[in-house]
């Protein structure tokens, strides 16, 4: 099963990207294409999720949604506590990193869905709605922690506007609403583009992600062993706990595994932008290296199979 994940074109493309960067190849996706692919991927998962949502009864959706919201509020607190107590980070940097680990990485979500589907059991189709629910609260909570006691250089209203109107939320929520409004039939003509092309586009996207992540690797020494360990252990803790809790909301094992992957993942699109504005004193090297250089690679290779194995074991 691990081999199934590691031998998928998506993961190997990520590895190829890392290798290309390490041998100092000139291979880079043009920035505008990378941005375009991220728009495509976010809109596609929004649309597909919305179409599924349109045929999901509210009572089925309510439990997982409430759980996701709760996890979005709690995980930044647990991450913050660990970073402060065990990691001895100052308040600002701890809050900055916590915002990332509370929020969610859409690409990790996508890879998890692809993995579960490849393993034979498609997770619930409405999960993208949970990604949207998970994205914002954690950032708000973490910033609130940072702003409670002291005056700060940045503005936290500015920052919230940044997340709420940011590309990820607009495309996810917008896509969900569109998909939900049009329903399966009217979505049909757009399917070859948004569904058929999806996996391949993801391969190209992860190729560039590998190049970007490799750029973070050289900072591993700067961030020190604690943050490296944090970037692996924290996701495992958050992920397994979420898988376990998900079982009580009626989510299928595949769905629980994907939710685990989501909660365990660290944001590297929405959160960095928001944190940069609200907490400019925080050091980007910490939060970018841990979320992008450690947690993301860990999750897409080893984490997702782990959450999936745990979910199926729980269900058995």
């Amino acid at each position: 099963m691990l081999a199934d994940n590691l031998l998928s074109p998506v993961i190997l493309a990520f590895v190829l990207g890392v290798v290309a960067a390490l041998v100092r190849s000139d291979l880079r996706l043009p920035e505008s294409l990378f941005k375009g692919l991220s728009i495509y991927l976010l809109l596609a998962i929004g649309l597909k999720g919305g179409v599924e949502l349109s045929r999901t009864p509210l009572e089925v959706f309510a439990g997982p949604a409430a759980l996701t919201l709760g996890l979005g509020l709690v995980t930044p607190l647990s991450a913050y506590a660990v970073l402060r107590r065990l990691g001895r980070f100052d308040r600002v940097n701890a809050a900055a990193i916590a915002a990332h680990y509370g929020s969610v990485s859409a690409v990790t979500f996508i890879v998890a869905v692809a993995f579960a589907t490849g393993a034979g059991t498609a997770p619930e189709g409405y999960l993208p709605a949970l990604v949207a629910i998970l994205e914002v609260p954690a950032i708000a909570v973490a910033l609130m922690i940072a702003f409670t006691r002291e005056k700060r250089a940045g503005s936290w209203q500015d920052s919230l506007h940044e997340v709420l109107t940011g590309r990820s939320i607009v495309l996810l929520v917008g896509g969900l609403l569109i998909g939900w409004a049009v329903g399966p039939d009217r979505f049909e003509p757009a399917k070859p583009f948004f569904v058929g092309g999806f996996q391949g586009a993801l391969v190209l996207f992860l190729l560039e992600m590998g190049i970007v992540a490799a750029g973070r690797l050289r900072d591993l020494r700067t961030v020190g062993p604690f943050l490296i360990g944090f970037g692996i252990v924290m996701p495992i803790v958050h992920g397994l706990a979420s898988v376990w809790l998900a079982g009580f909301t009626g989510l299928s094992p595949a769905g629980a595994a994907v939710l685990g992957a989501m909660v365990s993942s660290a944001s590297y699109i929405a959160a960095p932008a928001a944190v940069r504005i609200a907490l400019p004193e925080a050091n980007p090297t910490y939060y970018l290296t841990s979320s992008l250089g450690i947690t993301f690679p860990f999750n897409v290779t080893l984490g997702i199979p782990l959450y999936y194995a745990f979910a199926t074991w729980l269900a058995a």
Partner: protein
Amino acid sequence: MHTTTLKLVTIVTERILEDRLLRLITAKGAKGYTLTQATGKGSRGVRASEWEGPDTRIETLVGPDVADAIVAEIAGKYFEHYAVIVFVQDAEVVRGEKYL
């Protein structure tokens, strides 16, 4: 040809500050600006969102007082925590009164 000597203020900074700095220079009296995409390296290596795009390069032609005001405000507000560089040059502008 009648020309005016104005100040060309060039700012290179992280993309995330673009909107904020454009509001700042407009508030200080700049009548216009020109933006180009840039990348760069200085004392701060890392950018908040690598795919938000790289840096932004802002040029604005202004009178000397406006130039001073812009430079002072940016230095005070952004030098400490953000990657930003500002420099000022002279430039001869035709019908430069328009930009004063």
